[in-house]
């Protein structure tokens, strides 16, 4: 299933609810969602909700790096929340915990 991203307000914070496969095909959906979201909720920390993501590849990791760079330009932080075991394993191998807060 292609990646679907919903922009939500979670206790006043921007939360991006993701579901499906987060892979090289997700580029456009993912980027559009975070650009829209950051416009609608222009300040504050951002939460990326992985609850519905069951697969992630290395291109997805690359997209996270791009997103991080974009958020940092605007002085905003990103945390990754509700990650499933399979996603956590991948984040762990590449030590993305050193770049993002993972909850």
């Amino acid at each position, binding site marked *: 299933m292609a990646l679907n991203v919903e922009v939500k307000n979670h206790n006043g914070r921007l939360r991006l609810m993701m579901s499906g496969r987060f892979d090289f095909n997700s580029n456009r959906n993912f980027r559009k969602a975070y650009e829209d979201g950051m416009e609608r909720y222009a300040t504050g920390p951002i939460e990326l909700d992985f609850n519905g993501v069951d697969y992630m590849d290395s291109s997805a990791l*690359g997209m996270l*790096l791009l997103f991080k760079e974009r958020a940092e330009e605007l002085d905003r932080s990103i945390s990754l929340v509700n990650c499933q075991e399979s996603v956590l394993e991948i984040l762990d191998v*590449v*030590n993305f915990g050193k770049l993002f807060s993972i909850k």
Partner: protein
Amino acid sequence: MSPEKALVLEVEVEEAKKTEKTMSLARYVMGRMVRKVNVDEDLLQHWVLPAEDFSGDVVAASMTAGDRVHLMLADGTGHGISAALCMMPVSEIFYAMSGKGFPIASIARELNKKMVSLLPVDRFVAATLASIDWSNKTIEIWNGGGPAAFFVNEAGERIQTWKSKNLPIGVLSDKDFDDKVDVFHWEQGGQFFMYSDGLTEARNPADELFGSERLYQALLRADTASRFEHLKESLMAHIDAAVSDDDVSVLAVNCKTDFEGSVELEAKTKSNQAIVRGPGTWKLELKLDAADIQKIDLLPILLTWLKQCGISQKNSQRLFLILTELYNNAVDHGLLGLDSKLKTSSEGFEGYLKKRSERLSELQEASIEVYLERIKDKKEDYLFFRIKDSGPGFDFLQHFRGQVVCVDSLSGRGITLVNSLTRRMTYLEPGNEVEVEYILG
């Protein structure tokens, strides 16, 4: 068929031909860039099962100056030609720096620096670098985003595993990059394994992954001599007729306990004696202070110098061993006051290196003087080397007496080796200065 349709078809065929040409050129170039592994088969086994498309895996191994082999397994993001293109500088840097005698920590750092500047933000390279030193029975490893590498004993049981502790190459700035390596010392023989994620992620026709459990089980079912082949067979049986969309790369190093460094080294060096140029006598004098000692990789610089001066490959390798040993002695024992006895157990060796790096980072007010001269006349042609540290000196007589008793302990080996490779080795009072002469002719 209408003429328009025929034209469209013709254009499509032309395009397909062009693409095919590009692909075959890329395949040729990449084939030459990667997978050239030039190490004896009884020491190193490797296997690459290529995917349909380029997957961007790079496997490289290089004998370095000194008795080591450097290994690298790197996996770039993405697939296809773009992934392969991104990987081109990786193997070049690895081979060039290994050949010059740089340690893997410096190679990892340089790779990161280079790839950060070359790659777009969303691309990176997962890589594992390892250095195997048979004469000291140690493995150094740096893993940034690669699958866990491991060491198995003769029975195939994993006794050490190295998970990735770092971000992949090409993500962090040089300032934030951590080049710390893990060090392992093997007491009992075994094998060191590295693999790409294509191995554990290979699927069978029922879409099940090979997985790390099947991998570890396969290793237990065979003895050391056939373990590698057995792993290959297990994987092939698993894949059956399924098509792999990722390269599968596996490296295994035979870690023996009875390796005689200097003997093997002699057997390995080919007879490619370089021509000695001109009258070619020279002197080289260097003085390093504490900050230099912390920062500079002196040995690659000396090795490059020797090569530039036309010293043959065989002599350069031996001189590299001699210089490494004496320089490390000057730093470790002369300046940092470390006791070799610390090294004699497995835990001790790692403890030793930890202490070394602590004391080195705290070093102040110290110096090392290095003097290298080539002396040549009608009768003889030799190198004179002297190294002096600012430490208090050590009781070399006692050291020699000690090392005769435990000749193959980790501590005594180096000096014995230097002694056997040189015409003369003399310690000067109070023991902070040593001279050697090495015959070139």
